[in-house]
């Protein structure tokens, strides 16, 4: 089992209802983690309904949903960025 800090930003944070949580999990990839969250509660199902419009970062580096969580400590989910 590993302990992950999970962060949510922008409208994803609003749908999940909290900016940050700690989960214990033994899944292998980001996609597995999303599936586990979605199975847990309706809020996540709503938040992750359209994964094509979401981005993910592991330990503050952008990656994709097929990425392995091995060694990860912080996983962040968010919509496409709108800086500048």
């Amino acid at each position, binding site marked *: 089992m590993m302990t992950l800090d999970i962060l949510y930003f922008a409208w994803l944070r609003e749908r999940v209802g909290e900016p940050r949580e700690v989960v214990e999990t033994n899944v292998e990839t980001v996609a597995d983690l999303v599936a586990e969250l979605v199975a847990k509660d309706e809020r996540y199902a709503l938040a992750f309904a359209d994964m094509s419009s979401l981005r993910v970062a592991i330990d503050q*580096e952008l990656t994709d949903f097929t990425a392995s969580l091995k060694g990860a400590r912080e996983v962040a989910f968010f919509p496409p960025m*709108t800086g500048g």
Partner: protein
Amino acid sequence: MDIRVQEEPFHFGTEAQAFSDAQDGAGAIVTFTGLVRDLPGTPLDVMEIEHYPGMTERALAKIAQDASKQWELSGSLIIHRFGAMRPGDQIMMVATASKHRKDAFEAAEFLMDFLKSRAPFWKREITADNTSWVESKPEDEDALSRWDHIQ
């Protein structure tokens, strides 16, 4: 390379002049400044910018490093605000300095293109009757492909 992520306003003119003064041997300086625009229709009360502390600084430093590898720059600056802003307020600025104008222009455009869709900022527009997250534009993602050859 100077990267600042801050809530407080900055003074564009002062920053632009300080950046220019700090350059030694540069012949060309380009700046870009992004301002909060009002909305068509209902006036915008507040533009609020959320960011991902920690990742923001890392992402901006990476973008500035990539620019320094590709172009001959004697200096670069990125300032980006978060928090609440009003129409006309300065959101962010970049500045680049080089011997040559082509390098300074290209590097500034590169910084802007990557900062738009690769740095973790999210804008929200608040009017009297609505609050909505700004959606990313397909053309912002498309703009990145212009730089494919240097990735």
